[in-house]
C-alpha cells in the first residue's frame, strides 16, 4: 500500500522548492556547458518534475528497473535536462555526468534514450507518442497486478499531434485510472504562441469529453502542485486522470520567460551568469 506523506506541509513545500532551484541550476548549467539544448520547456516543467521525483513517485535509484516503480514518460523529450538533473540529484548517476550532455559517448543524449540512461523509462524525442506509451505501461501494470502509477508529461504544442487523442480514447476505454497525464500548458511551441500556431481550445474540456477526470493547477506553485498530485492519486474512479498545469516557458530566468527564442538555444557566458544569479541568488 501507498503511504500518505506525514511530512509537515510547510517543510515539505520548502524542501521541494529548494530542490526545484537546484534542478533549475543544473538545467541552465548543463545546457550552457553543452552549448546546445532546450531551456524553455525544461524550466516550465521543473516544479512539476521536481514534485514527482522528490516526493510522489515510488522509485529506487539503486534499482531503476524495479517492477513496482512508478513510471515517468517525458513525452516532450526535448525538455530532458529537467529529467537528467532530477535523476542525477536522486542518485541514479553521478552529478558530474550532467557535464557530458549531448557530447559524444555520453549517457545523456540530446533526447531521452531508455537504453543509455538509468532511470529513463522510455525513449522520446519525436513528439506525440508519450501518451500512447503511457497507455501501454498502465495496461502492463494491470496485467501484472501492480499498483504503480504511470505519469506522462506532455507539451501543449505537442497536443497538436493526433496520436494524443487516439491514446486519450484508448485510456478511457480501458478505464486506466493508474494513468496520469500532465499537460505543461506554457502556451508556447516552437514557432510561436500555441493560440497562433494551432489553437487547441480548452484542453480540460477536450480530455473531459474523452472520458477523463481533469484537474487544473498552477504549475509553479509548489503547494498547489502537491495538493493536486495528491488528489490525483487518491481519486477513486475508473477514469484516467489529466492535470492541466498552467506554466511559464523559461520560468525562473527572467529574460527567458515567455520568449519563443529560448525554446532551443543555449545561453552565452553573460546570459549564463545572469541566469545563475537569478536562480541561486549568488554568482556562478
Amino acid at each position: 500500500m501507498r503511504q500518505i506523506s506525514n511530512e509537515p506541509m510547510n517543510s515539505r513545500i520548502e524542501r521541494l522548492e529548494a530542490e526545484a532551484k537546484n534542478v533549475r541550476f543544473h538545467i541552465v548549467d548543463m545546457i550552457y556547458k553543452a552549448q546546445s539544448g532546450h531551456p524553455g520547456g525544461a524550466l516550465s516543467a521543473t516544479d512539476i518534475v521536481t514534485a514527482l521525483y522528490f516526493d510522489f513517485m515510488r522509485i529506487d535509484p539503486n534499482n531503476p528497473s524495479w517492477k513496482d516503480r512508478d513510471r515517468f514518460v517525458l513525452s516532450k523529450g526535448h525538455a530532458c535536462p529537467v529529467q537528467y538533473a532530477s535523476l542525477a540529484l536522486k542518485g541514479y548517476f553521478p552529478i558530474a555526468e550532467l557535464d557530458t550532455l549531448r557530447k559524444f559517448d555520453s549517457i545523456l543524449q540530446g533526447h531521452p534514450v531508455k537504453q543509455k540512461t538509468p532511470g529513463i523509462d522510455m525513449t522520446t524525442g519525436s513528439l506525440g507518442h508519450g501518451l500512447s506509451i503511457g497507455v501501454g505501461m498502465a495496461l502492463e501494470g494491470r496485467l501484472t497486478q501492480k499498483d504503480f502509477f504511470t505519469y506522462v508529461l506532455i507539451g501543449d504544442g505537442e497536443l497538436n499531434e493526433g496520436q494524443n487523442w487516439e491514446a486519450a480514447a484508448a485510456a478511457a476505454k480501458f478505464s486506466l485510472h493508474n494513468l496520469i497525464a500532465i499537460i505543461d500548458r506554457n502556451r508556447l511551441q516552437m514557432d510561436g504562441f500555441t493560440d497562433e500556431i494551432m489553437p487547441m481550445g480548452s484542453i480540460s474540456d477536450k480530455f473531459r469529453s474523452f472520458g477523463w477526470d481533469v484537474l487544473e493547477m498552477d504549475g509553479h506553485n509548489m503547494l498547489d502542485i502537491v495538493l493536486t498530485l495528491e488528489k490525483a492519486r487518491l481519486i477513486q474512479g475508473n477514469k484516467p486522470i489529466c492535470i492541466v498545469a498552467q506554466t511559464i516557458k523559461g520560468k525562473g530566468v527572467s529574460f527567458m520567460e515567455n520568449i519563443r527564442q529560448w525554446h532551443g538555444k543555449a545561453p552565452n557566458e553573460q546570459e549564463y551568469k545572469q541566469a545563475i544569479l537569478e536562480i541561486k541568488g549568488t554568482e556562478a
Partner: protein
Amino acid sequence: MKKATKPTRKAFSERMVEYGKDHTDFVVLEADIGYSTYTHLFGKAFPSRYFNMGIAEANMVSTAAGLAADGRPVIVSSYGVFLSMRAVESMRTYVCYPNLNVKFLSSHGGVTAAIDGATHQATEDMAIVSSFPNMKVLCPADSVSAAKILDLSLETPGPVFVRLMRDPLYEIYDDSYTFKIGGSHVVRQGSDITLVTYGDMVFQSLEAASLLEEKGISVEVIDMYSIKPIDKETLLASVKKTGAVVVAENHQKKNGLGYAVPHYLAKIDCSVPFSHIGLDDTFAESGDYLQVLDAYGLSARCITKAIESTLARKKKELT
C-alpha cells in the same frame, strides 16, 4: 573550397521567397519548425500562401494532398525523420499514388542533426522515400545547388523529396551549373576509382580525394544529387574509365544510394570492385557532427581507407 555562409535549408527557403514572387500558384505548409527550416521567410512575404499546421506532420501531408488534388503545387516542410516516418503513409498512398504535385522540404538529413541524437537523425529517409513509385529524390550539396533545386522541384510535375542539411558546409558550385532530374556532376576528375556521393558527403569525399592525391591515387568524385532516378550515363562512363566504385552516403547502408548503384551496374553485367560507406545497420548518437561522422565511419579519413582497400581488390582482379 569556400566555407558556406548558410546551410542548404536556408538557401532553399530563401529561393522559395524569390521564386514565389513570379510564381503565385504554389503554397507552403509548415509543421511548427518554420524558424528552423526558414520557411517563416515565405510566411512573412506571402502570409496568405503559408499555413502553419502545428506539430501534426501526418495531417499536414494529407492536407497537402487535398490542396494538390486539382493540381496546385504544394511545398510541405519538416525534419526528415518526421516527414519520412510520421507522415509516411500520407506520402505514399495520398501523394505518390495519385501522383500529386507535392514537394517535400526535408531538413536535417543524415546525422547532420548530430547533437540532437538518433531520434532526430534522418538516416533511413532516402531508403523509405526512394521506394515510392512516382517519387523523385534530390539532395543538394551546397547553397547554389539548393536554390536551383528549389526551382527544379517546382518545375517537375509530381512528388519530389528534397533532403537538406542542418549545418553550413562548403560551397562547391558556381552559378553556371545546371541541375536536372536524373542528373549528377563530376566535381573532381580522376582515373583510378569512382566515388559516388551526395549532400554533406560531397565535401567529405572531396577531402578524401585530396588526401589520396598525395599518395598518388586519382579519385573521380560524382555528386549524385539526383538519388532517384540516378544518372546512369555519368556513372557508367566513369566506372568504365576507373574500373572501381565506392558509394559514400550519410545514411544507413541498407537501401540507400549504395544499393542503387551496384544494382544498376550488376544488371548491365558491369562487374567492378565496390565498397560502401554509410551507417552499418546501427543507430548513431549525440555529439559534435564531425566527431559523429568519424565515429561511424563516414568521415574523409574513413573514405580514404575504403578507397585504398577497394583499389587493392581491383589490382588483385587484374592479376
